[in-house]
């Protein structure tokens, strides 16, 4: 079987309103990913475009982006798993290369949330749950995670202050990330005193939707060694799904889709949680990062909050997490988010993460979740 590596990564600046078209937005990430590589567009065998289609005005955007990047007549197609679409894109690219079908695949994730009016966005927000059984009650994405937060607080005595500590950490790194949307440092009081959105989650416990794009260039091992000075190897991929309905969940104190995806990825990579030098986890809400610590095995169930309280997930801690600001500071352009997480880990493993480099990082992990714990994706990368 062929080895698979990431040779190029890029992302646009994440912003509330990008002011350019979707194709131009995608070009920003693609340009950064391709620059410095010893390949051109003609070497790309296929492209995979990732976004959540309910936010797109353009129908079937993969064809449009393929045309703009002059990737025709090579095949292009669209994949979607909401907030984890571009991790799914990487998984498909990996499979296409492993199968021997292609040598180089471009993954391009994007979302232009500002293309919708706030009324249109609120309408789509209302259809995020099961539209027969749960949306008629007014469920939202924050409400789903808030129910996990409440249950976690009740079972493990996790506190709102501990959740706020996640935002404080991530905001301290977001302030140094030139591509982040939110670049202010926040204090515990800032978070605790912000408006309640859906109890116990407050405004600063939540990430903001954004415009943004990301791109990952994936290559077969022999090609990767030729075109890239430091190829980053994809050594584990895991993916799992949980129910769309909240009532279908077996656990309300952890995401089983994350646990299963992590189990698969660790097994394939032949590594353990303690081998991970740096991680990006899906912190769409502060509670989500605490759940991820436990679901990924960085902490035992119920001990996630202690990890942040002891500052073990800062860049100089036991297991640095989201030292680029996370979704909480960078913002969350749905289809682009996974690619941005992967970019951060690739830059860390190359030793190029100048804003907050984890010294000597060799193995990194990316955890990207779609919906409220619906689609779990874990990818393990090695220098």
């Amino acid at each position: 079987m062929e080895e698979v590596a990431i040779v190029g990564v890029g992302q646009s600046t994440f912003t509330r309103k990008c002011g350019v078209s979707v194709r131009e937005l995608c070009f920003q990430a693609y340009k950064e990913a391709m620059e410095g590589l010893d390949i051109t567009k003609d070497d790309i065998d296929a492209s995979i475009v990732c976004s959540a289609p309910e936010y797109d005005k353009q129908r079937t955007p993969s064809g449009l982006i393929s045309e703009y990047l002059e990737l025709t007549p090579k095949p292009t197609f669209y994949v979607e798993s909401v907030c984890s679409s571009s991790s799914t894109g990487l998984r498909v690219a990996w499979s296409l290369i492993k199968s021997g079908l292609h040598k180089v695949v471009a993954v391009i994730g994007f979302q232009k949330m500002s293309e919708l009016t706030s009324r249109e966005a609120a309408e789509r927000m209302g259809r995020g749950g099961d539209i027969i059984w749960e949306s008629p009650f007014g469920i939202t994405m924050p409400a789903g995670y808030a129910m996990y937060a409440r249950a976690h607080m009740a079972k493990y005595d996790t506190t709102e202050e501990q959740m706020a500590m996640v935002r404080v950490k991530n905001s301290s790194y977001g302030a140094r990330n030139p591509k982040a949307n939110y670049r202010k440092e926040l204090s515990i009081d800032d978070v605790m005193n912000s408006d309640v959105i859906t109890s116990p989650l407050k405004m600063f416990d939540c990430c903001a939707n954004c415009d943004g794009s990301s791109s990952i260039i994936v290559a077969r091992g022999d090609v990767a060694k030729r075109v890239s000075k430091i190829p980053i190897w994809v050594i584990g991929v895991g993916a799992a799904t949980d129910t769309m309905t909240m009532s279908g969940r077996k656990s309300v104190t952890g995401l089983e889709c994350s646990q299963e995806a992590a189990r698969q990825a660790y097994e394939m990579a032949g590594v353990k949680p303690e081998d991970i030098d740096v991680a990006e986890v899906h912190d769409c809400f502060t509670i989500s990062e605490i759940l991820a610590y436990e679901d990924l095995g960085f902490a035992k169930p119920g001990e996630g909050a202690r990890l942040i309280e002891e500052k073990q997930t800062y860049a100089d801690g036991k297991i640095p997490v989201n030292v680029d600001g996370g979704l909480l500071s960078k913002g969350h352009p749905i289809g682009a988010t996974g690619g941005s997480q992967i970019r951060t880990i690739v830059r860390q493993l190359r030793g190029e993460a100048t804003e907050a480099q984890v010294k000597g990082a060799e193995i990194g992990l990316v955890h990207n979740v779609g919906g409220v714990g619906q689609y779990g994706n874990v990818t393990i990368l090695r220098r």
Partner: protein
Amino acid sequence: MGFESFGTVSFTAEAKVADFVTYLEQGKVMATQCKNCGAKYFPPQMDCPRCLSTDAEWFEVKGSGKLITYTTVQYGPSGFENDAPYTLVIVDFADGLRIFGRLSRDIKESDIKIGMDVKVVPVKLADDRISYEFQRA
């Protein structure tokens, strides 16, 4: 009659389980059980992926359940702007049935306790709409 009158805002109408709404009007919250293999479902479904039967019967969700988690939503999506704040909960009943819905407005947020006993009751909403909610058992 289908799901067009179910909940505060409905998004679709037709379903083989539309009798759920008819039962609500008769004062009953129902789940389904596969006639072939006996699997029980909430949300109700006529189709059984375990044995591929398409024949299920209805049974009433009775007694009290335990509230396992909740959140009080301050900002609702489209159609819920004037509805917020409202409290969403998940409740465990016997037979492994786990049901999502709203908690009665009669229970203040500060009085909600995880583990509290609640029952599920059909409720009429404005504009001839119908739903169910959880009330103190």
